[in-house]
Every structure is written in structure tokens, then in C-alpha cells.
């Protein structure tokens, strides 16, 4: 299946309250790809994910899944939001929440089927959450909740999984565990993945493609194609340096001599 477009975002403009948030956005994602959506806070990452999900209207452009316009009820696309606040009192066990990924949108009187329960067990095992499957979801740690949210999104067998800042608020150890888990999901279940993050380095070993967002515009390609001074300078509208140190990439604002602006004027430009 690799080589065919699973998702295509074409010529998308988004304006919210008169402010242009996304401008002429174009990219595609193929089956089984791990794609990082990188950008600083306010770059439009969450808006772009909402556009793909059909939750945000566009001024212009279209989102196609398998060549067809995306609809809100499209089960091909799963979603893990940036933050879900699970109250400690919420009387929902982990396995019940994951099961809602299968039947949470269904109206009716029917009881949950045996097949659904078996699928839930499989998915809990795949994300290594079986050990706490009967605990209340509000009693879990941030990393454990993130695993459960991923299982919830994957249990309906989507072809593309969107994750909005899943590494935010996690300690480095838990973040690394989540990245490894997601990489194994992409490899074993052939799910394409679009993960937004303001940190690029933890994703470098696993990313097939990067979509770099800044100033409402994006650049898409492999890391070597996109994370370059000329591409990012064009994206930001002024000079940007890319420094590679010990396998890490640092993106920093250039100085005035290079026609760039002062770092103090643009603190958001230090991405890593």
C-alpha cells in the first residue's frame, strides 16, 4: 500500500476571527508513514489537525482521505487530543473507556458485544495497558493515560492516527516510551501517524516525514529536505540557522547581519 496517498491536504486556508491561521497548506501522507507535525506554540498545528478531522471550517481548499472529501464520521481517521481531563471520580474503567472507541458513537439499547471486548483486550495488550485495565482512568499517571487514549483511538482500526502534542506534560522517560509505542504501532499495524509536537529531536529516529509549521505556512518532506536554513528561513520570513550537534537539531533565529531578526524579538523561533 506504500506509495498511495492516504491523506491529501490541498490549498487549505483557514481564518479565525479575521486572522489568517493557515495559509496555502499542501501536503500528503501515505499508508504506514510516521509524520511529525513540528512547530512552536501558535504555529497552527492544532488548527491543522482540526481541519483534517472536519472540526474546523476552511476558507479555501480541501482535505481528501483515499481521494474522497473527509467527513466527520470517517472511521479511517483516529484522534488523540492534546489534553483530556479525567476527573478522579469518573466511574469509568480503562477497558470501558477503550471500548468507547468502538461503540462510543452508537445510539441504542444493545449491550456491548463479546467481539468488542476481545478487540479491547487485544488493544490493551498492544499498548501494554493490560495491567491497569480495571482501574479507574482518572487514577492513572499522565503516561498511562496517554497509552489508554492511544488504545481508544486505535481500537476502531483507523488507517490514520492524529495525535495532538501527545508528549506535552510527560517526563522524558514517559515521552520516550510513548514514541517507541507509537513506532511499533506504525510498524506492526500499518497505521499512518501524524503527530504534532513542538519538540523535534525525540522524533528524529522514527519520523519518515516532517511537516514544519511556522507563520501559518508549512514545509513538508523528509527531515533532510525540510530542516535546512534556506527552507526554514523562507518559512519564517527571515534568516534561521540549523545547527546539528550530537545527533540533535537546533533551530535558532539568525542575527541581523544575515538579514534576520534579533532572537529577543522572536523568542518562539528557538524550536529546540
Amino acid at each position, binding site marked *: 500500500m506504500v506509495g498511495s496517498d492516504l491523506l491529501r491536504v490541498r490549498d487549505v486556508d483557514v481564518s479565525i476571527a479575521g486572522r489568517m491561521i493557515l495559509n496555502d497548506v499542501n501536503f500528503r501522507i501515505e499508508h504506514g508513514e510516521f509524520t511529525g507535525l513540528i512547530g512552536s506554540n501558535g504555529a497552527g498545528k492544532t488548527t491543522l489537525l482540526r481541519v483534517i*478531522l472536519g*472540526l474546523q471550517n476552511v476558507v479555501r481548499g480541501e482535505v481528501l482521505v483515499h481521494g474522497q472529501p473527509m467527513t466527520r*464520521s470517517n472511521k479511517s481517521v483516529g484522534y488523540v*487530543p492534546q489534553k483530556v481531563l479525567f476527573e478522579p471520580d469518573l*466511574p*469509568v*474503567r480503562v477497558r*470501558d473507556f477503550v471500548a468507547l472507541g468502538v461503540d*462510543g*458513537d452508537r445510539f441504542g439499547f444493545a449491550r456491548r458485544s463479546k467481539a468488542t471486548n476481545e478487540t479491547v483486550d487485544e488493544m490493551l495488550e498492544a499498548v501494554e495497558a493490560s495491567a491497569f485495565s480495571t482501574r479507574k482512568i482518572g487514577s492513572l499517571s499522565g503516561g498511562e493515560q496517554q497509552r489508554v487514549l492511544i488504545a481508544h483511538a486505535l481500537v476502531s482500526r483507523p488507517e490514520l492516527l492524529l495525535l495532538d502534542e501527545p508528549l506535552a506534560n510527560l517526563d522524558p522517560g514517559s515521552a520516550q516510551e510513548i514514541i517507541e509505542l507509537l513506532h511499533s504501532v506504525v510498524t506492526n499495524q500499518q497505521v499512518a501517524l501524524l503527530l504534532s509536537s513542538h519538540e523535534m529531536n525525540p522524533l528524529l529516529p522514527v519520523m519518515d516525514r516532517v511537516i514544519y509549521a511556522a507563520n501559518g505556512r508549512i514545509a513538508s518532506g523528509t527531515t533532510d529536505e525540510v530542516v535546512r536554513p534556506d527552507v526554514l528561513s523562507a518559512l519564517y520570513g527571515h534568516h534561521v540557522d540549523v545547527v546539528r550537534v550530537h545527533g540533535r537539531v537546533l533551530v535558532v533565529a539568525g542575527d541581523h547581519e544575515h538579514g534576520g531578526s534579533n532572537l529577543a524579538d522572536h523568542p518562539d523561533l528557538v524550536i529546540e
Partner: protein
Amino acid sequence: MRWLFEPGLFANGSVRTALVLGALVAVVSAVVGIFTVLRGQSFAGHALTDVATAGGAAASLAVVSPLFGFIGAGVLGAGAMDAIGVQRVKDRDVATGVVLGAATGLSALFLYLITLSTSTTGSTQSILFGSVFSVEPSTLPDAAVLGLLVLAGLTFIRRPLLMSSISPELAGARGIRVRWVGLGFMVMLAVAVGLSAIVIGSILSTALLIGPPASTLKVASRLSRAVALAGVLGVFATWLGVILAYDSYYWFASRRGLPVSFFVVVLVMLEFVIASAYTRWRRVHVATLRRAPREEDGRS
């Protein structure tokens, strides 16, 4: 021998009606109340009681069954809250506050008009604080149909409702029409408040709606168990409240009993205090149990 309760309790037709109606209302309130608490809409529930007050008073003036006044006004109030704005928590609070203010003003007007009318003596008391012993048995079938409709409706929408209660964003991404599900729930909430108003009065109906579910959510780990336990606690408080109110007639030489709503509200409060104390004890107990093996390991 002194009876625990005065004899003849269950032979009394008014008591039997009160017990049946009380159980029905307690169960409906418990089921709706669990979702009300989960969705953080206790304030909306309270506002609907004020809307119900206006409806009950208007119905009383029009010499119509207060039940239909309670429910009719509640449904209109729920629709008004949705129309003004329920998407964001802040908007929801504003919408609820606006409707509550308007309803309280209408209540003041209708209750004042009732005091001027000789044909509605005692209506103000029964609208605000309930009078389950004076409910006609003919009200039971209507209340039962409405209660069963609410229970069936909630069962029908339970999964999308739970999803949108946990995370509206996640529910929206799964294609659930969060606003329609929310509006449907608000209508059911209005009916539950209306039913509760005829037992303990419109002002106190949030006690049954919020009390047992809030107590239950402190201890239950599963939604189905939370609903069942809230129902049991609600029925217990209502039945014991009815029995105590009946019995209180014999407590004083003046032979004037105390109102049912007083006992129900006190019992609901007691349940909440006990549930809170149990939760605190369990937290300390579990922490102690977890600490003990570590200290044992340290010594060995």
C-alpha cells in the same frame, strides 16, 4: 409496646402513593443526576428547578396539574439555555444564569398572584417544598410514563452522552453531534426535575438529583454500579423520608407532622457525609496498607 412506626402506615392510600411515586422519582433523578454531575451541570439543574417553580405556579394559577407546569416550563428552559449558548463552560454558566434570573422573576410574579387567589390556598407551599401526601393517585400513570421515557431515552443515548461528557472534543472528532446529544440530555434533566418537584418541591428537587449521585461517584468504579447505587440511595432517602414524615404526626402533642422534603433532604445530606467520610477513611487506609510492606522490607 411502642411500634417503630405508628401502625396503619401502609394501609394509608396517600402513603402508598407517596412511596410508589417517591421510588420512581428517586430512580429517575439518580440516573439523570449521575450524568448531571459528570457533565458539571449541577448549576443548570438548579436553574431548572427555578424554571419549574415558575411553571408549577403558572399551572396552579391555571388550575392545571402542577406536574405539567413543572415539566413544560423545564423543557422550555432547557431549550432557552441551549439557544443562548452551551458550547463552552463559560457560555453555559452565563446562559444558565440568564434563564435562572428570568425564571425567578416569573416565579415571584406567579407566586404573588397565587397569594391573591382564594382558590389556590396552600399552592405556594406545595410548589416550593412539595406535598407528596396530597398527590392524587391519578397522577401516578402520567409520572410513570414520563419517568420511563426518560430512562429509555437515557439508555438510548448513554454511550454518545458519556463520550461527550468525558471529552466534547473527542466526541466531536468521532462524529458525535455533541450539541444535539447535550440538548436531548437537558430535556431529560428538565423532566426529571419536574418529577422530583412533585415529591420534594421545585426548590429542593436538586437534592435528589445531585445528592445520591454525588455520594455514589465518591465510591463507585463503574458507571452501571454508580447508577444502581445512586438509585438505591435515592429510594432509601425518599422512602425513609416519607415514613418519618408520616410518623412525625404522632411525635408532637399538637399533632402536626413535619414535611417530607425536610426528611428527604436531611437523609440525602447524611448519605453524602457518610460517603465522604468513607472515602477519606479508605484513602488513609489504603495509603497505610501500601506503606506497611515497604517498612517491613526496610526492617528485614
